[in-house]
C-alpha cells in the first residue's frame, strides 16, 4: 500500500476502513426526545465555553432509531443534547451519546467529535408506550416513556423539518500520540435534505440513574416538559470549525 492509497483511505484500519467518506444518508430515522428542566449551575458546568447554555435550564434527552444508515448500517443511539448559543446564534450542543455500532462511534468521534461511547440503547413501541432504554456496561441508566402518537405536533412536518436544520455542535478532542491535545475544537454541522414523515407530541416521563461512565443523571431532572416523536429522512454532511481551543483560547 503506497502513500497515495493511504491518504485516500477514509478511516482506519487500512484493511477494512471503519467508515466510508461522507456525507451519510439516513432513511426512516426515528427520534424520541424528552425535554426537561435541570439545575442551571450544573448546566453551565456541563457546557464548554464559549458556548452559553440556554437560560431556561432546558435539556433534551434523546433516543434515535436508525434502521437504514449509509455506511453505518442499523443501530440505535441515546444521549443528551443541550440548547446553547454560540456568539448569539442558537446551536444544539451534543453532550453525551451512547450507541451500539462501532463505525458511527468512530466516525462520530473522529470526524465531528460526537461524544460517543458503546452501550445498548433501545427505542421500541411496547403496547401503548413508546419506550426508550439505555444500558451501559450491563446496567440500566436511562428510561424514557411517552404516549404513542398521542397528538400531532402543531406546525406539522414542515415546522419540524425547519427546526432540524438548526446548527448542531460538538466538542472534538483528539489526542496526539504523546497524549497532548492534537485537535481541540468546537465543530458545527447542519443536517440537509431533511424530510419529516410525521411528528407527534405527548406527555412523557424520564428516569436517569447515576453512573460514572454514563453520567446521564449528572444533569438531574427538575421537571419534565414533554415528549416529541418524529420520523425523518436526512443527510449528515461534513462540518466546520466554530472555535479552535489550541489557536483561539
Amino acid at each position, binding site marked *: 500500500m503506497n502513500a497515495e492509497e*493511504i491518504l485516500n483511505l477514509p478511516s482506519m*484500519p*487500512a484493511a477494512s476502513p471503519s467508515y466510508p467518506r461522507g456525507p451519510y444518508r439516513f432513511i426512516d430515522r426515528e427520534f424520541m426526545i424528552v425535554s426537561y428542566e435541570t439545575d442551571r449551575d450544573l448546566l453551565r458546568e456541563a457546557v464548554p465555553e464559549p458556548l452559553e447554555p440556554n437560560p431556561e435550564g432546558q435539556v433534551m434527552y434523546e433516543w434515535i432509531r436508525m434502521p437504514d444508515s449509509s455506511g453505518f448500517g442499523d443501530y440505535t443511539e441515546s444521549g443528551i443534547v443541550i440548547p446553547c448559543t454560540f456568539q448569539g446564534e442558537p446551536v444544539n450542543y451534543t453532550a453525551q451519546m451512547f450507541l451500539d455500532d462501532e463505525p458511527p462511534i468512530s466516525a462520530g468521534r473522529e470526524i465531528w467529535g460526537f461524544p460517543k461511547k458503546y452501550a445498548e440503547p433501545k427505542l421500541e413501541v411496547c403496547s401503548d408506550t413508546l419506550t426508550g432504554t439505555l444500558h451501559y456496561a450491563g446496567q440500566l441508566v436511562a428510561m424514557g416513556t411517552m404516549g404513542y402518537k398521542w397528538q400531532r405536533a402543531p406546525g406539522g412536518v414542515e415546522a419540524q423539518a425547519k427546526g432540524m436544520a438548526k446548527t448542531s455542535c460538538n466538542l472534538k478532542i483528539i489526542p496526539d*500520540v504523546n497524549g497532548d491535545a492534537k485537535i481541540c475544537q468546537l465543530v458545527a454541522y447542519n443536517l440537509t435534505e431533511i424530510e419529516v414523515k410525521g411528528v407527534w407530541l405527548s406527555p412523557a416521563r424520564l428516569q436517569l440513574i447515576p453512573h460514572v461512565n454514563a453520567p446521564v443523571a449528572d444533569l438531574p431532572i427538575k421537571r419534565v416538559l414533554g415528549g416529541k416523536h418524529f420520523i425523518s429522512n436526512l443527510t449528515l454532511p461534513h462540518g466546520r470549525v466554530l472555535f479552535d481551543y489550541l489557536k483561539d*483560547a
Partner: protein
Amino acid sequence: MKKSDVKALASMPLQSPTFPRGPYKFFKRQYLVIRYTTDPALIRAALPEPLEPVGDTVAVQWLDLPDGEGLGAYSATAQVIPCSFKGEPCNFISQMYVDNTPPLAGGREIWGYPMKFGKAVLKVNADTLTGTLHYATQCVATGTMVYKHDAFRKDYAAEKERLARTQITLKLIPDIDGTPAIAQLVAINFEDVVVHGAWTGRARLEMVPSVNCPLADLPVRDIVGGLHMVTDMTLPYGKVVHDYLA
C-alpha cells in the same frame, strides 16, 4: 466549563472522558498467538509503505485483558504482520477487535490502533486453549492450542524479545471536512514487561471471510505454531516515525 479546563481534558466526552491520560499498565495480560504462513504478495499489499515485508509468516492473536488501568476488563483479537522499518524489525498491527469503548476509542485516537468492535473470547475449554471472535453476530475466527504442554520451561528470553519488538500502527484521523488531518506511522514499545509464564505447542486456526472483519484476507497456508503467555506490561505513549502529510 472554562476554556482552559477544556484544553486539559484527556478525551471526549467532557462530562465523562472515555479514557484517562496514559501510560496504561496491564496485569495478567494473557495471549494466545497463532503464527502461520500466508501469501507474500498479500502481505506486501497489506503493509503501508515505507514498511517492508519480512518473510511470509503472520500471526493472529487473542488477548484476555482482565485488569487494564483506566480501561477495565476486556478481550481483543489482533492480526500482526512482522515487517521492517528502516531496517529495524517491527510488528505492524493491521487489524484489532475489542469489546470495550475506552481501549477502542483511546487505541484509535492516541496511537492509531486499528480497532473495531468485535466480541473476542479467550478461555480454557476442557483441554483446549480456545480463542473465538464474533463480528456483527457471526463467528469469524477460531483458534485452538494445546494447554501448557511444555510446563517446565523457565527461560522466557524469546518471549521477552518478542514483546519488546516495536509495534507500528497506521494512525488516520479525518479532519472535519473528511480530508486527512492525521496520517502517520506510530511506533510503540511496551515497557516494564514481566512474563509470568509462556508455553508453546500445536495450534489450529480457522478464519471465515467477512467484509468488515477481513482477517481471512491473509489466508492460512501452514500453521507455524501456538504461543500462550501471561504477562504484565505498561503501554506508554507512542512516537511518530513517518508522517504522510509532511
